């Protein structure tokens, strides 16, 4: 009997829906400890940031300051709700539009700069914004943020935020996947390969780079809003250069080549050091050793293993099927 070939697309759909179902039932049956759930929610927020930052990195834009836009989202929603007295639903669109407009202006001014210069520039932006928060709203104390509430629902428990964050993450992944497969994604990849060649074909590369940065800024603002309302308190210490670096490190360790990379990296680097139950010192050592070890052995990040897994998985299923068929009982029939 011919064994049906497992089509790649079908495998993809099955595995994605399996992951989705798993994530939905996760807080109901599997994870009962609130701390682990908290970690998974944080992984979700990091992944929203990391995957959208990855879009910019497909064009080889060395923007390494995600905490800048994260902080703008978080402080924006806090200020609008506390000082101006807007409701959550009014504040969210204003914050998103504001951050995207800022990213648009910043992008047009700076994205001509490339490589390490852009990296330094983005870190300078992070530090400049952080100091701005310190001198204006923050004054080195934590700002309390009211929890998110919309359509009569007050989000208060960890489980509710878990669902909110991972639902947003699912939408983010779908949108980013679509963007990457669209002509925008193709242009961004061509910029990474040879920007002057792309320009010589009449493509306004700067415009596309700005689009990538704006898309990233939008999702970073959303992540910032989630971060602020989930933690219920923000301080400038969450938006430092190091906070930015953690996101970038997660993205690279997971692999910049795949849309799943930032999620894999965030999950590995957030959950593993905590699960081992070590002191903060050893946690940080393990974190950085993991980073160095992964990049040492897999320069493309963890998801560079994906093609090999994808190839071997249908192979494995088929051989399993073959083994079942060749069971003695069946052969005798």
């Amino acid at each position: 009997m011919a064994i049906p070939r497992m089509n790649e697309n079908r495998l993809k759909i099955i595995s994605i829906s399996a992951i989705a179902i798993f994530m939905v039932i996760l807080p109901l049956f599997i994870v009962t400890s609130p701390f682990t759930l908290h970690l998974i929610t944080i992984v979700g927020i990091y992944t929203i940031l990391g995957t959208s930052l990855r879009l910019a990195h497909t064009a080889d834009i060395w923007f390494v300051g995600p905490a800048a836009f994260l902080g703008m989202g978080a402080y924006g929603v806090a200020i609008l709700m506390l000082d101006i007295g807007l409701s959550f639903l009014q504040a969210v669109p204003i914050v998103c539009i504001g951050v995207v407009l800022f990213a648009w202006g910043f992008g047009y001014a700076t994205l001509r700069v490339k490589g390490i210069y852009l990296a330094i520039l983005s870190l300078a932006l992070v530090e400049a914004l952080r100091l701005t928060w310190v001198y204006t709203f923050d004054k080195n104390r934590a700002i309390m943020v009211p929890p998110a509430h919309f359509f009569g629902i007050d989000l208060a428990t960890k489980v509710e935020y878990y669902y909110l964050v991972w639902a947003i993450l699912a939408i983010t992944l779908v949108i980013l996947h679509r963007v990457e497969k669209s002509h925008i994604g193709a242009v961004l990849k061509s910029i990474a390969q040879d920007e002057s060649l792309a320009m010589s074909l009449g493509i306004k590369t700067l415009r596309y780079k700005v689009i990538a940065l704006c898309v990233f800024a939008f999702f970073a603002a959303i992540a910032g809003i989630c971060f602020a309302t989930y933690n219920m308190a923000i301080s400038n210490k969450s938006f430092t250069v190091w906070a930015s670096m953690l996101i970038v490190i997660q993205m690279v360790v997971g692999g910049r080549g795949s849309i799943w990379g930032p999620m894999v990296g965030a999950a590995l680097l957030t959950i593993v050091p905590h699960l081992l139950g070590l002191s903060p010192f050893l946690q940080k050592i393990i974190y950085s050793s993991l980073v160095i070890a992964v990049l040492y052995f897999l320069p493309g990040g963890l998801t560079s293993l994906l093609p090999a897994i994808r190839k071997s998985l249908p192979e494995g299923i088929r051989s399993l099927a073959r083994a079942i068929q060749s069971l003695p009982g069946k052969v005798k029939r």
Partner: protein
Amino acid sequence: MSPVLVGQVLINGLQMGLFYALLAVGFSLIYGVGRIIFCGHGEIYMMGAVLNYFLVMRLGLPYPLAIIIVSLAVGVFGLILDRGLFRRFLGDDFGIFIVSLGLAIIIQQVFLELFGGHPMGISTQIRGTVKLLGMTLSRERLVTSLISVAIIVALHFFFHRVKAGQAMRAVAQDPEAAALYGINKSAILSLTFFLSLALAAAAAGLIAPIFSVSTAMGSRALLNTFIVVTLGGLGSFPGAILGGLLIGILHAVGGLFIGEITYLTAFVIIIVFLVVRPRGFFGHT
């Protein structure tokens, strides 16, 4: 605002600038020769300062001897990093960037665990003050500044008169052409690591008696180094010196007139500067 006070502030700024310059030269060298963005530079600087503190204050070694020992030891540490870690990543610029960040976290955490987070002070045996044009300068500061000037002059001599230094510049300018002339790029990169890290440790040792030392000083040093090399142009020796002096003076003068906001100003200036002149003062395309 008396002219004496302004003069004093300017001199303090120049002094800070000298140390920034020493740090920036090393960072710039590593980038120029190996295209390596070495984010551990700030932590290496911290390492040098804390080790100097340990040798001088805990073990009671004489201060000049401590500086020499620490600089050499940190330089050898640089050789180990180069051969053991960074060789593997040559060519993968972004990977190197991330790996050096991981390394920076490890160094910082290990030193935090060993020495704690509190500020530490080093006292040298150099006492007294010197009067100059109505300004009062501490002899300690004067001596350390003169040593750093001497190091910079020696570096200039090294880059222009010594074969190894010339080879370093050649590799930084055009690695392939340098290889065609028979320059051993691998050896030059090792030498660069040794020199850069030793310079960072020396700068730290020289600055330690003036400002207090702590295990948390690395990340700000790294950010300052970024700013300095961007101003001067990455890979440029005179650029790093000029950038260092400018930022030192900016911090000192700004600290006097507008206080803490100077740091913010420095970052805004660097953003505007990069947009207007991405290659810095002396950088080449």
